[in-house]
């Protein structure tokens, strides 16, 4: 009903606001007259817009009898074809951006709320407001200049000046020390540790020319996996749970043992299916470990082991993709300038190699995703912080603390789950909103997605195309709202639909 009304309005508004034949009328050419006639016939331009709308509607309603017809574009393609090409492109971009932004936003927002009124909190608040005020096209152009063009220049002559190493290390130091908070002594200890670590890392990177031939290697992966095992256990069950710790460490050990076999599998059977199989194997191993190690309370142990396994496996995968870097740089299509500024694929890159193709997709994703993340991160930080503070002031949190639960359980089990309720419905809305709202990002980075299609339709007065884009976006908004409501009521037992 609403859909009908809004599409009727947009159709007529657009039809009266634009004249698809204006340019052709101006020319006195014979061919132009021919074109006017043929366009009039194919687009039914001789029917007045309100009536023409119903012709269009008839085609749309054809979907119920299995015969969807959204009309043809000016170039004579069907609108369905154009949409079918554009949707995956936009979804890929928006999904990557939203998921990353949510993960970072959640983490930063939670820490910011737990450390309310600390230096970190003030820093995050300011950062959020700053990001909130940034125009996305401005950010996108800056990213193109500094992350792509200058980084590519840097790669052709890689050498990190010591000045930058120090500046970067100071920033990392400030970040981590404000994150941990505490008194002056603790502040400086953490600052020193973070400063030294990042300085040494940068130096090592510079010495080994890591960015020319990156990779993690089995030793680094071993270290990181053990770190992940401890971190996941600390958050998931607490380090006092010895069985969970043992399971997580076993998982990390298995990941290291599997490093070389995994290389062989990846090289010979690189496909999404292989990755899927490996993930299922990790899940099964995690379940098995929980059976071996414990007779009671297996779920948290299995959870810890599986998360550890997937994160370590992800490291190995990253390592494999990194190994393609050198080949990728050397291909003719890339020609030593690996960070692209334009398009969603390199058309010249013709290769059967699974890893090269994926690296290409990832490299093209980086900049536009980064731009979108920067813009939407602010909202997530603020929402998360607000929601968690709201929840932490509730009586049940006081009760949980009063009965002697430790802070970890209070935060992860009582506060975090309740906080996720409003955020989960927000996520759906944000995702749907971005599909239509990524217009500018798509334009700056030259992606052929939904937004570009809409712009093209407006610029060429292509009514059918415009209506196709518009219809799809409206349906997405409406179904997004519906899904958000359903998710909310499914998660929150206090809300029941239909009562």
């Amino acid at each position, binding site marked *: 009903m*609403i*859909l009908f*009304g*809004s599409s009727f*309005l*947009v159709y007529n*508004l*657009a039809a009266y*606001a*634009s004249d698809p034949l204006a340019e052709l009328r101006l020319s006195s050419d014979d061919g132009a007259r021919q074109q006017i006639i043929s366009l009039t016939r194919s687009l039914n331009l001789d029917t007045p817009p309100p009536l023409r709308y119903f012709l269009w509607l008839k085609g749309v309603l054809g979907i119920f009898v299995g015969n969807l017809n959204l009309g043809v574009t000016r170039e004579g393609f069907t609108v369905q074809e154009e949409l079918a090409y554009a949707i995956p492109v936009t979804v890929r971009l928006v999904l990557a951006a939203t998921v990353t932004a949510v993960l970072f936003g959640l983490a930063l927002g939670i*820490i910011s709320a*737990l*450390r309310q*009124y600390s230096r970190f909190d003030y820093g995050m608040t*300011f950062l959020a*407001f*700053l990001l*909130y*005020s*940034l*125009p*996305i*096209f*401005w950010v996108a*152009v800056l990213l193109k*200049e500094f992350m792509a*063009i200058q980084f590519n220049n840097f790669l052709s002559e890689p050498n990190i000046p010591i000045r930058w190493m120090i500046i970067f290390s100071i920033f990392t130091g400030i970040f981590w020390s404000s994150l*941990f*908070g*505490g008194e002056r002594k603790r502040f400086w200890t953490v600052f020193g540790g973070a400063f030294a670590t990042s300085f040494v890392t940068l130096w090592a990177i510079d010495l080994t020319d890591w960015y020319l031939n990156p990779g993690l290697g089995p030793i680094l992966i071993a270290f990181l996996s053990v770190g992940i095992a401890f971190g996941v256990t*600390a958050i998931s069950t607490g380090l006092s749970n010895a069985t969970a710790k043992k399971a997580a460490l076993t998982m990390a050990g298995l990941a290291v043992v599997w490093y070389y076999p995994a290389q062989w599998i990846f090289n010979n059977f690189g496909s999404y299916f292989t990755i899927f199989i490996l993930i299922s194997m990790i899940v099964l191993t995690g379940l098995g470990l929980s059976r071996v190690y414990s007779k009671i309370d297996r779920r948290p142990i299995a959870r810890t082991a599986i998360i550890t396994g997937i994160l370590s496996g992800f490291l190995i995968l990253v390592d494999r993709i990194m190994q393609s870097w050198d080949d990728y740089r050397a291909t003719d299509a890339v020609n030593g300038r690996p960070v692209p500024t334009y398009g969603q694929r390199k058309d010249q890159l013709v290769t059967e190699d699974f890893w090269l193709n994926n690296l290409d997709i990832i490299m093209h994703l980086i900049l536009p995703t980064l731009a979108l993340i920067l813009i939407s991160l602010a909202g997530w930080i603020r929402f998360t912080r607000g929601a968690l503070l709201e929840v932490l002031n509730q009586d049940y949190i006081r009760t949980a*603390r009063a009965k002697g639960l*430790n*802070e*970890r359980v*209070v*935060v992860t089990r009582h506060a975090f789950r309740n906080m996720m309720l409003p955020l989960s419905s927000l996520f759906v809305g944000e995702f749907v909103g971005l599909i*239509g*709202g990524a*217009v*500018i990002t798509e*334009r700056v980075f030259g992606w052929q997605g939904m*937004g570009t299609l*809409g*712009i093209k339709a*407006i610029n060429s007065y292509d009514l059918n195309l*415009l209506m196709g*884009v*518009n219809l799809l*976006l*409206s349906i997405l*908004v*409406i179904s997004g709202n519906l899904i958000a409501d359903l998710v909310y009521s499914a998660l929150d037992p206090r809300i029941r639909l239909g009562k």
Partner: protein
Amino acid sequence: MKLFGRKEVSTGEILAGGENAIANKEVEGLSQGQIVRRRFFHHRAAVIALVSFASIILFVMTSLDSKMGPIRIPGWWQWTVEDIPELRYEDCPGGTTGCPTISLDPTSDAFGLGTHPFGQDDIGRDYFALVMNGARRSLMIMFVIGAVSGFIGVVVGSIAGFYGKKVDAVLMRLVDFIQTVPTIIIAAVIGKAAGKVGPLYLALFLGILGWTGLARLVRAQFLSLREMEFVDAARVAGASNLRITFKHILPNAVGQIIVVITLIMAGAILTETALSYLGFGVVAPDVSLGLLISQYESSFTTRPWLFWWPGFFIISIALCVNFIGDGLRDAFDPRQRRRITKKDREQAKLQVKAGE
């Protein structure tokens, strides 16, 4: 790793009756307006933002000539948008032309503004004048959008919330209806047509699209406020619907309304610049900040100043409005208490000791 640290509560605070006591003491005997004003001026970031926002407006508005009907108020800046002075090329890096003359280095001879502090564009027009003109246009659009969507949102929201039932249902469907129309696309369609009639109409159209969130909020406020006892009391005393709305309900909702309007305005300047950037908002020969960035995007590598200055103005305007909105939200929110500082705690302790 002590991620889950809990705030310590000192004995002095407990003796003094917790944090409430300190905060409540401060607002004893003050009217609501005074409390809000006081809270706002205690919000340091908001005050800084307010002052800088006011100075930006003053700076932008007085710098160029302004015309109001027959009256012409001359601006203090020497160039206008129409002037085409000679392109400067001495001292410019890498053979470029029209670089900015502003210099913040007090030791050099060139310290000060110079003739073209923001540089010149490719035909020599003074970029400071262009940016000022663009900022003026963007500010105007921002305020018009804020006013239009604020007005429609409050009217629709209060009617829906006050009368409820069928009126509410119809108006809320209207809100749903407008929300399904993708803003950027419809704004682009309108902008493409409105480009010929001027930026004012663009702002009006954008305002007509932007009120839905506010209407929902006002409606929710009205729905809960009209059940309050003081509204019943007013009705029993014989107050008309209009009087109840304006004297009893709206003053209680005004805080939230103002906050949302500031947020709409902060969003509006970004929408306007984004549309102009896409070529559907303000179009040449008119100037707006988004349009300036769009026009000189390609010259970023060679003449970056053409890109930096309009961006700088967009960011500072949006940032100021956001911070003002945040300060207002804190000031109007009755649950928000001022942060209890160390000094307050010490004082409370001293008072308790003195009382013993």
